[in-house]
């Protein structure tokens, strides 16, 4: 993020911090989720909802900023297809063509943190922050105030992917974040668009693309998972769609989802050795 943006963000942070009534309840939620109390989500959602109603004023103000009057269909368009707003097609396409690394994490370079990703284009075109930036900032601001926000490793706009706001979190925080995103009235990400997993050789990532029907907004979440001890909390009880997807990720990528109701191989046979989508996978053949 550019300095300018950081400043912007800081401002926002300070502004909203005052209004943010992060009650002790939230802390409790945090600890509860850390203990992987699976049966909690309903209660949690209720609490989160209550909390949301307290902050309704500030939320609606922010909404005013992040939600232009344009119909939602245009907001969520793939870039280049419908481009009738101020950002002309030419500029945007050029953007993606010439600065590809702007896109996101360079997968092959583990040393480079994902953070610098969004930097370059913003530096060169400081006047054009992504139209999704306010929406992302809103999250970041809110999430930063939550306890355990140190787990939020990064938040950036994936410009190559139609300005997709993306969060990067550590695996410990994923379940809590998922509950927050699913249930908080300002998020309401009820819909899992895509549930994927990637092997970056240094670490694994669970990549989830969420969609919020009330706000017609997309959000990408990347959960960093340790490669040797690939464990992450299951979110199958939060999104029913995650159930089979987690089984698939377990089967093919070897990520163990703790608390999953039925974690078995789904595509391959139960006797299969190894997880094929890992980059170091070697087919096991008894005959050889």
């Amino acid at each position: 993020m550019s300095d300018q943006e950081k400043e912007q963000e800081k401002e926002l942070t300070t502004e909203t911090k005052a209004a943010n009534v992060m009650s002790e309840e939230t802390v409790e939620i945090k600890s509860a989720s850390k203990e992987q109390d699976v049966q909690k989500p309903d209660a949690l959602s209720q609490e989160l909802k209550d909390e949301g109603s307290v902050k309704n004023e500030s939320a609606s103000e922010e909404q005013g900023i992040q939600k232009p009057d344009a119909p939602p269909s245009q907001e969520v368009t793939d870039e280049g297809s419908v481009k009738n707003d101020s950002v002309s097609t030419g500029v945007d396409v050029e953007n993606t063509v010439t600065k590809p690394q702007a896109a996101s994490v360079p997968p092959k370079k583990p040393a480079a943190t994902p953070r610098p990703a969004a930097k370059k284009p913003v530096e060169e075109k400081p006047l054009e922050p992504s139209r999704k930036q306010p929406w992302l900032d809103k999250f970041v601001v809110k999430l930063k105030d939550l306890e355990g926000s140190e787990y939020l490793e990064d938040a950036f706009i994936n410009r190559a992917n139609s300005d997709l706001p993306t969060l990067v979190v550590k695996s410990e925080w994923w379940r809590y974040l998922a509950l927050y995103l699913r249930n908080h009235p300002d998020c309401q990400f009820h819909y899992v668009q895509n549930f994927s997993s990637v092997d970056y050789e240094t670490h694994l990532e669970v990549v989830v693309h969420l969609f919020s029907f009330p706000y017609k907004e997309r959000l990408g979440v990347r959960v960093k998972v340790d490669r040797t001890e690939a464990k992450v909390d299951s979110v199958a009880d939060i999104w029913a769609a995650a159930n089979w997807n987690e089984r698939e990720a377990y089967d093919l990528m070897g990520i163990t989802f703790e608390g999953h109701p039925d974690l078995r191989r789904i595509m391959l046979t139960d006797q299969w050795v190894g997880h094929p989508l890992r980059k170091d996978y070697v087919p096991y053949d008894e005959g050889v």
Partner: protein
Amino acid sequence: MLRTEEMLLNMGPQHPSTHGVLRLVIKIDGEIIREVDPVIGYLHRGTEKLAEDLTYTQIIPYTDRLDYVSAMTNNYAVVHATEKLMGLEIPERAEYLRMITMELNRVASHLVWVGTYLLDLGAMSPFLYCFQDRETILNLFNELCGARLTYNYMRVGGVKWDAPDGWLQKVEEFVLYMQKELATYHDLISGNDIFLQRTRGIGIYTKEQALSYALSGSNLRVTGVPWDLRQHQSYSLYHQFQFEIPIGEKGDVLDKYHLRMQEIAESLKIVKQVLGVIKEGPIMGKVPKVLRVPEGEFYTGVESPRGELGCHIVSNGKNKPWRLKFRRPSFYNLQILPDLLKGENISNLVAILGGIDIILGEVDG
């Protein structure tokens, strides 16, 4: 009270109405289903793993084999994602040809559904009527790209073949014919009392359930959510054309039938509009010889006949994807099945499973 014993019934992977190689392990009490455990993976070919060793152009034929009933949309999903990551410009004619083929493919796919669904319910004739009309579409595709099911038609940057002489004319004739033919289908099926009895009030789920299970396509729209990626995340040139998103009211299988029939009509409408504006021109944009996709991560979904067909590409700047993941709508849609089947009887199992409209090639990836 009579003590009854539960019986474990193994339905599939070889069974006439599991639409391929789906296996359902069912606990039944008499004919009442107590529990269902779908077992999948019999058609898993590891497309995602294979794709990691293939160049982007080489991946395209593999996508044909995912949802083999609407291969055009699959082609498009991966081609579209690659183009977006590379920021390529696609010539207009290519986009129009893509839209025509995709929409025709949607019509063909829904026809297969209507036919096989009625076959599941025990009616034989509609199956053949549907397949006859579908045959016309397949013949059109055959003329266009030399294949009837696995087209391998689209390329990064455009399409492989231009429409042969008179092809567009034939498409137009078909559209006009099919629009009339739809009325015949309604005469034949929509009013049939047994059909109505078999489908009305069957397999209902709520909007919340649908969203939680991330259902998409007609399975989601049937609960009253007007969600169609062609309009809401407008890709290709769909925004230029007028079409409606039919939604359901009650969410039962009968609604799904009507909805898919309407979708056929809407697709025909789109094809007709495209035929009105398509002009001569190049069919391939400027594409480098070796497709090197810049580093980055990209997810995009397109509206396949079965729902949101997504393509998640992680590229490391080489000519092969680091990771390619398909969001396969049938896979997501099938998940809700155990929930829907509890307490139903076996005849309803067939009606509900058929209503979901799964293609096993896609479920298993």
